[in-house]
């Protein structure tokens, strides 16, 4: 594969001048993923920060064809684009090869767009679906989603005196997608750029649907110091909260095993949305989060055929 220096010379498909926040994971993840495609690409986008910050009419930050339809239908929309491609190719009306990718946030993917995503994956469209997971409905003002971590303070799961933040653990979407038995599923973090780049490359290359769940931190919603984004993305997998794995044709593979045990609170404490958990009366929530992280890690090791630590 290319090294970072070579990749940096490639013309960006998502150009600078978009209006994403400084320290937002969306731009970093999107640019890195699109670096892995060489054919012309059509990007579909669910309603969300990536869409509204990059396509403010009459401007666009996209050098490729881009379509936004609604919040919950990015996967169905790209299904239609890809079906049109197959039809026009078959009829000899189109010569070039195209790739297809849909981006959705966790709201548009785990929740309101889940049905459309599941349908598109089941039908086997040759497309890549990327969830830019920032763990809440950030574009509408930081409301909880089914990807929001337990204990997080959001505007619809506020940390109050009776209920200290979000009550449930997050949905494991990558596992659910793997159970669709599609050719390629992965979970990645932009901080490990090589890992993400390789996964994007594989996703574009497989024949059929591919799904990548990418951690995309949000400085507004997570309330971290902007330059800390790299540390946060790194600690997410060092603490095993956000393991890096892939599932190729049903075979699970762990891509990164932390060398030492880093407690999840190392990740939590960099983020304002978990600040209340560090009050003594909420200590038990951190313990519960740690227990759940450990439980899910053990399950993952088992799926990947790795020895329990």
């Amino acid at each position: 594969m290319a090294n970072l220096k070579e990749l940096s010379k490639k013309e960006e498909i998502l150009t600078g001048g978009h209006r994403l926040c400084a320290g937002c994971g969306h731009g970093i993840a999107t640019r890195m993923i699109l670096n892995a495609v060489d054919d012309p690409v059509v990007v579909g986008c669910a309603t969300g920060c990536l869409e509204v910050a990059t396509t403010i009419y009459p401007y666009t930050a996209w050098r490729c064809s881009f379509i936004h339809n609604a919040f919950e239908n990015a996967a169905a929309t790209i299904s239609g684009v890809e079906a049109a491609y197959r039809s026009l190719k078959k009829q000899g009306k189109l010569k070039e090869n195209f790739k297809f990718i849909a981006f959705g946030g966790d709201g548009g993917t785990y929740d309101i767009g889940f049905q459309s995503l599941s349908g598109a994956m089941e039908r086997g469209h040759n497309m890549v679906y990327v969830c830019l997971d920032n763990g809440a409905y950030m574009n509408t003002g930081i409301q909880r989603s089914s990807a929001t971590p337990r204990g997080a303070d959001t505007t619809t799961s506020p940390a109050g005196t009776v209920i200290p933040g979000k009550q449930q653990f997050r949905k494991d979407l990558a596992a659910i997608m793997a159970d669709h038995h599609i050719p390629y599923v992965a979970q990645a973090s932009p901080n490990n750029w090589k890992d993400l780049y390789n996964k994007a490359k594989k996703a574009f290359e497989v024949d059929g649907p591919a799904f990548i769940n990418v951690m995309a931190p949000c400085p507004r919603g997570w309330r971290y110091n902007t330059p800390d984004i790299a540390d946060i993305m790194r600690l997410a997998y060092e603490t095993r909260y956000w393991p890096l794995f892939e599932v190729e044709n049903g075979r699970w593979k762990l891509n990164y095993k932390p060398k030492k045990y880093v407690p999840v609170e190392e990740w939590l404490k960099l983020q304002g949305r978990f600040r209340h958990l560090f009050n003594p009366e909420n200590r038990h929530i951190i313990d519960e989060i740690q227990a759940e992280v450990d439980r899910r890690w053990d399950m993952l090791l088992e799926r990947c055929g790795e020895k329990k630590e």
Partner: protein
Amino acid sequence: MNKRVALTGNEAVAQAMKQINPDVVAAYPITPQTEIVQFFSSFVANGQVDTEFVTVESEHSAMSATVGAAAAGARAMTATSANGLALMWEVLYIAASNRLPIVMPVVNRALSAPINIHCDHSDSMGARDSGWIQLYSENAQEAYDNMIQAVKIAENPKVLLPVMVTMDGFIISHALENLEIIDDESVKNFIGTYKPDHYLLNAENPITMGPLDLYDFYFEHKRQQAEAMKNAKDVILEVAGEFKKLTGREYGFFEAYKLDDAEIAVIILNSAAGTAKDVVDELRAQGKKAGLLKLRVFRPFPYEEIAAAVKNVKALAVMDRAETFSNFGGPVFAPVRSALFDMKNDIKVVNYIYGLGGRDVVPEDVARVYADLEKIKETGKYDNLITYLGVRE
């Protein structure tokens, strides 16, 4: 060569779709539309069309995928009824606002609740402000003819709007009728090849579709959409003219049936117009000056033409197969009455809501409407502005 065949409404529409040979059809089954996509999927399975058939998991995705396909540069279609159309509602607006020339048959059916699979117009009337052109069809022949004309109307560069072609659920969709179908080659020549100017699968000239459009441009885009709907009027007539040359069958904004010298008249849509024509014939035989206006084009709304067509009528009834719950009649009534506002003469206009949930409308029902109109004509007065026809009260 054209030929006469016996087909149900659903078969006729599926036949039109086969001859149109769209690049993509994305659809989900719903009674009474289901048959259309079943017939069509057999055409796909037998290699009779070039279509990629996308068997989506819902009507919301059906319209979403159709939007994606049309945006990609393909001729794209779907079909639906009732709650399926309601589930598409959000995306209907997006299809129209992105100026995508999608054609969609809608087999009219009542909206829940209570659940009811039979005909009324609450579904398509609910979608009347979504920016789609709406063509209504009295029978299978008209549904077939409208489908073929719809492609040419939608894709006209002055229009570029999606078109809904409706027919009444079960009454037309499932009843066998004799109709004339056009030969494949003539349909192909009539609709021509689709060559969009801007589309996603153009590597030379990529585009951004569906951007964020704030107060600095959104209004202008809506204004352009309104202009396209205005342009659609001329295009609908142009296409009808060409279609007449091809088939001899005449279409306009509406059919004026014995309306020229009529003193009492009814405005009605779709299958019940056939029943009403029989009643008009009977009344004419009795020497009564009865007439009928069967509306074909509801969006754009041909208000000037309607007003001109009924200007000499003394009493007019607008029959609606849908309720708006505005307490001011059905969806056809209000704009018709408004269209007559500038007329100098004093036409009395009343509303009849009929046939909800598939309630039969029989000649006696329509005859009662004309009898009421006779009375209104003579007295210049009416008892009820809105009458619920054939309901137990």
